[in-house]
């Protein structure tokens, strides 16, 4: 069965937000399972999940089921289809899909939108092109083989006739999709592999783009919530008298904790006629809290405990050869411990949501990476059929994983049900930083054996960190396989004796995904430690690293994907060449490298720093990336420039601490992020090939911090292990 269907006459088309008429096509992608061969033909029931419409006025509309949070996905998706269709780029527009299982997997995470959609979009575009050509050939009574498509027209050169796509839409809507499709060759691409500007540029630059916080519904009230300072604490008692005196405050009441992974934390809500009154009312509250089970969380003490655990034997999760034997036969032993703190996402747009409970239905607007989760949870809480819950996805003002956890939607739903009117719940920056689903904190111990020639003969990596699984299965205190395969168990080094161990770590806050997730600390420790081995062997770090990666080979990377060590080495040598690796540098300057494979993409960084009077300056970061067939050059460059900044924020400043269970950071003054005066030059070299396109949002992050730390070593001979660097006095 062909995965592509003409659904122009199907009833459910009207639910997609399309006007009636024209050619509507769908692609059947059941399950959206992430596999190397995800584009294999669908079998069984036709459950379309990717939709386009060509109208008789020529407009081409794509339903974007992935959320836009700065990765330019709306543009990249449309450019792929428009390219294969030979459409006019100016005629393309986008409808943002509501959260609904008809679209398949909508979770915009894991850097996989292009990976999943590239092939289906191309096939659907090509099918539409063939149908338009067929419609024209019938109209003109000429063979299809004599017709071509070009820039939104079908052309018959022999008779010098042309007809626009729009004028063919109706006729094409009565045709079946072709059984065999010929896709363009890379040489024929007009948009793929080029730089396509964002389709939303004008709205962004003129303040017209609607983010979650910008939603206004008639009769809407505004709410702020005072949440338990300790995770899963509760309200003991509260005094609302002062809050109720604030002009504009209309009601104050307690809201419950909803005990599901993305449930509300509970607390005291203030409902008002404007945001400011709600926030002022929240400040005027006096609440006595029960601290609950997590009241003892102290991140400093917890780090000591995790460190102790990684210095002891732990659960073996990978074993090749015999590390102990190799250690006892070693010429030299190298060991290091790495301690990395919790991080908060701090997207510029704080969590927020509008919910409008209407008795037998509910309408929701929010910036969401996982709109179907929000819909499922809201329906469950309200006791409604999910079909009665509509979730509109707005633009996301940054997300970085935070908006995959829609606890803020649950709050809006609770409040709207209670107040019986549309409510926008608004988190201020302190709410955001103190009630995040935090990036985990980790202690890692690495130990290696070197032989007389300096070759690494054994590698032991022990990790302790609270797992994201603890958010879903409370009490989970070991990491999942995927979490450990973020640099540790999938280490791409040719070392005969290798062991990875996982030590126990309980979670005392909600743990979530943050841009590149466990690759942050596993990529960091493995890259810094590999550099230490080069130093111990008294070898050039680049030459030594290429030796560690070893010969060209394919390493199993899960779900049928393979890590290609040749591609890994290529990004590293490319970045090194661009940086001028080995050239003489000014006094106090040093160069450091890092290379990492994550989200099926290869990225290397070669960074030049200087340290003068114990002050660090990062001068240049040279990045090289292999993400398969580049879809949008400018977007890849932007994502990697952004990843460099994000990675530097982690390296310089990122640190969330808890004392007595309470998060101590409140805003950008004590949770700083990188600003323009600290930004180095960043170059991005995109390796050109036509492999399947892979992730680009996250893979740039893990290489930044280790390349900086390795460069500091090159400049000063001093080795740092723990982050952030602000604690060293260097920044």
């Amino acid at each position: 069965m062909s995965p592509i269907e003409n659904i122009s006459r199907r009833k459910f088309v009207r639910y997609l937000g399309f006007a009636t008429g024209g050619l509507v096509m769908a692609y059947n992608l059941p399950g959206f399972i992430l596999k190397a061969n995800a584009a294999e033909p669908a079998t069984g029931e036709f459950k379309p999940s990717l939709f386009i419409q060509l109208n008789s006025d020529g407009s081409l509309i794509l339903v974007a089921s992935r959320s836009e949070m700065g990765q330019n996905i709306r543009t990249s998706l449309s450019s792929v289809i428009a390219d294969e269709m030979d459409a006019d780029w100016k005629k393309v527009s986008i409808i943002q899909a509501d959260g609904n299982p008809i679209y398949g997997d909508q979770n915009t995470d894991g850097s996989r939108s292009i990976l999943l959609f590239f092939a289906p979009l191309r096939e659907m575009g090509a099918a539409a092109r063939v149908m338009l050509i067929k419609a024209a050939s019938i109209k003109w009574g000429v063979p299809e083989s004599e017709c071509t498509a070009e820039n939104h027209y079908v052309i018959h050169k022999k008779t010098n006739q042309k007809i626009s796509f729009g004028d063919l839409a109706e006729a094409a809507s009565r045709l079946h999709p072709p059984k065999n499709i010929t896709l363009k060759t890379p040489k024929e691409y007009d948009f793929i592999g080029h730089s396509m500007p964002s389709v939303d540029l004008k709205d962004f630059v003129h303040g017209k783009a609607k983010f979650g916080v910008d939603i206004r519904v008639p009769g809407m009230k505004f709410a702020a919530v005072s949440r338990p300072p300790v995770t899963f604490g509760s309200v003991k008692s509260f005094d609302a008298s002062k809050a109720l005196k604030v002009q504009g405050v209309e009601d104050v009441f307690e809201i419950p904790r909803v005990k599901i992974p993305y449930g509300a934390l509970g607390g005291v809500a203030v409902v008002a006629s404007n945001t400011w009154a709600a926030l002022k009312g929240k400040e005027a509250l006096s609440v006595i809290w029960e601290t609950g089970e997590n009241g003892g969380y102290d991140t400093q003490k917890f780090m000591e405990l995790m460190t102790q655990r990684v210095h002891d034997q732990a659960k073996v999760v990978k074993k090749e050869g015999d590390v102990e034997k190799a250690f006892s036969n070693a010429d030299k032993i190298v060991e290091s411990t790495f301690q990395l703190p919790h991080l908060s996402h701090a997207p510029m747009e704080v969590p927020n949501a509008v919910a409008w409970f209407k008795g037998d239905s509910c309408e929701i607007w929010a910036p969401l990476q996982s709109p179907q989760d929000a819909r499922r949870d809201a329906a469950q809480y309200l006791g409604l059929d999910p079909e009665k819950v509509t979730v509109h996805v707005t633009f996301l003002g940054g997300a970085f994983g935070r908006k995959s956890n829609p606890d803020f939607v649950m709050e809006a739903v609770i409040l709207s049900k209670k107040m019986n009117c549309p409510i926008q719940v608004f988190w201020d920056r302190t709410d955001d930083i103190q009630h995040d689903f935090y990036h985990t904190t980790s202690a890692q111990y690495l130990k290696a054996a070197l032989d007389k020639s300096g070759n690494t003969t054994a590698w032991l990596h022990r990790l302790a960190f609270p797992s994201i699984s603890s958010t879903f299965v409370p009490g989970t205190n070991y990491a999942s396989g995927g979490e450990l395969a973020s640099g540790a168990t999938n280490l791409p080094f040719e070392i005969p004796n290798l062991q990875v161990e996982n030590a126990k770590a309980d979670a005392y806050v909600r743990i979530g995904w943050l841009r590149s997730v466990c690759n942050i600390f596993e990529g960091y420790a493995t890259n810094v430690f590999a550099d230490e081995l080069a130093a111990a062997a008294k070898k050039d770090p680049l030459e030594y690293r290429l030796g560690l990666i070893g010969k060209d080979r394919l390493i199993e990377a899960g779900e049928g994907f393979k890590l290609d060590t040749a591609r890994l080495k290529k990004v590293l040598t490319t970045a090194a060449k661009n940086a001028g690796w080995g050239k003489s540098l000014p006094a106090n300057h040093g160069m450091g490298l890092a290379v990492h494979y994550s989200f099926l993409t290869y990225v290397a960084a070669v960074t030049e720093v200087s340290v003068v009077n114990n002050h660090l300056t990062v001068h240049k970061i040279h990045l090289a990336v292999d993400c398969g067939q580049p879809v949008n050059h400018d977007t890849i460059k932007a994502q990697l420039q952004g990843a460099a900044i994000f990675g530097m924020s982690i390296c310089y400043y990122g640190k969330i601490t808890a004392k007595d269970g309470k998060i101590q950071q409140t805003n950008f003054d004590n949770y700083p992020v990188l600003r323009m005066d600290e930004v180095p030059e960043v170059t991005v070299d995109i390796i050109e090939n036509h492999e399947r396109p892979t992730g680009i949002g996250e893979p740039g992050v893990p290489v930044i911090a280790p390349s900086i730390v390795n460069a500091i070593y090159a400049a000063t001979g001093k080795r740092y292990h723990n982050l952030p660097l602000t604690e060293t006095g260097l920044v």
Partner: protein
Amino acid sequence: MITLTVNGEKKSLDIDPDMPLLWVLRDILGLTGTKFGCGEGFCGSCSVLVDHESVRSCSTPISDVANKSITTIEGLSKINPKLQENWELLDVPQCGYCQPGQLITAAALLETNPHPTEQQIVDAMTGNICRCGTYHRIKEAIVKTVESK
């Protein structure tokens, strides 16, 4: 009653004089282009022009701007359309959320100093946070605007 001009339009508001300009714009006047970022003046997302100077609207009580002229992102094209054009040309935004504040701060710089040096641009823009990390392109767009004058 507080009177002010917003994007060229006169407004008279019967309102708590302590309410920050940000919330007057967003919740009372429906101009949602100006964004909340931190509420304490650390990030610059809420920047607006008050008589050609950039101020943090999140911490500016409405009474402070009585009888003054406010320009928000929705009205910026009347003051410096070239800046916005260059912002588009260089495809500056990623998520787009902080961009109104970045544009306003850049416009304010160019109002007082039409030919800033690169260092002056960096100094002026360092108060504005972009979490996506569009700083390179922001600087480039400002430089391009300066050069085209």
